[in-house]
């Protein structure tokens, strides 16, 4: 598995797209810091970008990589190798190289700007941790979609739909249900609703660590009581881990049975 991971990783490291992705984050970090002059404000702006872009790029890149390396995969399948290690190796290769582009691309300008001397370091690390989680989750989901669909166009379509659903439509449904059931106590429902969507969960986790959490008012106080405690943090990180593990598990299951 590690050999395949290494191959995919080096393959991706040589590809143009990793550099473009890396350069994009580098540029974003530099421009934000240049315009803002304030680390904690830059973290908020960055959050908006990460919440939207990281899942999108994770899904698209994952699907693209799977379809592009299909012939290589078929070649590997002819060798005496475990199927799960082939696919997990590929998956980890993509996810790790994407996360590295994210962490390095954003990390370098912030470190040069004096992150270690600023108290925004915890917010920033949380940002990178959730960003990495989102990459892992959405690449895994992308691999699931690609494995289930032989047709590339269909695969891409589902991938975009998945992103659209979790990033936008889910929040719309969430908001509608909050408005429809506004006569009932809603704090539990909104807590569960947030937990079920990795994008919402990451956004809430970051928001509550930032200064603007006071804006959330009394409702926010309920959330802060939950997410602010160690218990809440453990629960939300386990939810994120679960979001990684379940799709990965499905990758191995699916890969075992699939005909090539």
């Amino acid at each position, binding site marked *: 598995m590690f050999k395949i991971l290494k191959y995919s990783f080096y393959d991706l490291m040589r590809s143009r797209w990793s550099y473009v992705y890396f350069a994009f984050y580098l540029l974003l970090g530099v421009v934000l810091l240049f315009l803002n002059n304030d680390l904690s404000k830059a973290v908020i702006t960055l959050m908006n970008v990460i919440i*939207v872009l990281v899942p999108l790029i994770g899904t698209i890149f994952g699907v693209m990589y799977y379809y592009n390396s299909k012939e290589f995969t078929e070649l590997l399948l002819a060798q005496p190798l475990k199927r799960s290690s082939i696919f997990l190796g590929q998956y980890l290769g993509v996810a790790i190289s994407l996360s590295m582009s994210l962490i390095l691309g954003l990390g370098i300008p912030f470190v040069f700007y004096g992150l270690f001397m600023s108290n925004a370091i915890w917010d920033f690390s949380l940002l990178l941790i959730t960003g990495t989680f989102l990459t892992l989750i959405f690449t895994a989901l992308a691999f699931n979609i690609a494995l289930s669909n032989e047709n590339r166009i269909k695969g891409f379509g589902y991938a975009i739909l998945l992103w659209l659903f979790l*990033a936008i439509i889910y929040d719309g449904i969430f908001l509608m249900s909050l408005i429809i059931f506004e006569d009932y106590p809603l704090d539990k429902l909104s807590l569960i609703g947030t937990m079920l969507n990795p994008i919402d969960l990451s956004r809430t986790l970051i928001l509550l660590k930032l200064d603007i959490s006071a804006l959330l008012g009394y409702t926010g106080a309920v959330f802060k009581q939950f997410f602010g405690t160690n218990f809440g943090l453990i629960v939300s990180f386990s939810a994120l881990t679960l979001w990684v593990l379940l799709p990965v598990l499905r990758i191995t299951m699916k890969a075992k049975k699939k005909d090539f």
Partner: protein
Amino acid sequence: MTNVWSNTITVCSSCSVKTIHEALQQASEGDTILVKKGIYKEANLKIDKGITIIGEDLPTIDGDAKGEIITIGADNVTLDGFKIINVGVSYTTDYAAVRVVNSSGFVIQNLELEKLFFGIYLQKSNNGKVLNNKVRGEAVTEFNSGNAIHLWHCNNVEVRGNDVRNVRDGIYLEFSSHIAITDNFSKNNVRYGLHFMFSNNNDVINNVFETNGAGIALMFSKFMEVERNVITKNWGTAAYGLLLKEVTDVNLKNNLFLENTVGITVEGSNRLVYSNNDFTSNGYAIRVKGACYENEIINNNFLYNSFDISYNGKINDNKFDNNFWSNYTGYDLNKDGIGDVPYRPVKLFSYIVNRTPEAIILLRSLFIDLIDFSEKVSPVFTPDDLMDENPRIKRIDHDKN
């Protein structure tokens, strides 16, 4: 008849008069008591003659937590330059460091109050001055702490240059009118920096309110002038800079609201004029809770607030004109400094949050940005006449002296 010759009685540990209590008994109308440096363990000092009491080099009066320390019950009393500590805390009586009862012409100045329950308590007293006092409380909760400067049924009093911190309410007024509150500094108070109840015709000018539970609470009052105040860093889930509840005919001019969770919360208030204020980096700049009519919001700067105006309901009878909004995205083709497209300060999301507070959890999600944008293009839910017809292109430079 008043004396033609007024005497001066000196109090010190080596003088013939050793306690303030003794001096008060000896003094007659118009006399001066001069208290030298030292610690005087005295409480329940009653001043019932029009005398002047001056502390030299800040002598300390220690009340030993026995209750009230100084009670003034006569006209024309001056109290100057003492450090007064250890007022007793009670849940049935409002013990104060200095209480003025039914008097006029009093001057209370240069006091330093510490370990207090209530600080300076004026009741039914008129035509006096409270100047340059320093109050340092240790309040943690509302129910077992008192107010620094408390006015009840007073008229025509000047409260100037006081520095009040860590008490319940920095300055509290109830049924008081014609009070001038100027140049005060109010910080870290548990409840409000300045609190008005049923008090009319008062001026609040050039004060600073910082990190209080809430900066100023104006309730059930009329005819006020609030000018050139700085209200800042009232930040927390239930904090706001200025609360306006059931007030009418108030002028809010040249104030700065900086980094408050809510700059102004206003409810049931009519005929208010907000002009030349700066609202900078607040969560909400102005939160209108309803029943507010004939208000004018003109020539203000709204800079980098998460929400500029929050409104519930569809009726708008308030006028927004000639403000600068940092969130304005219009253009000015004829270069007259006024944007050609009106600005709508109410976002759909703030409207939703008013209806369903739990929805705030979707703050900064992509979906919310999308619906805000579509509402901006064609308003459906927010009042469609609520807009600034003449938004400025450049930020207004207010005259800040």
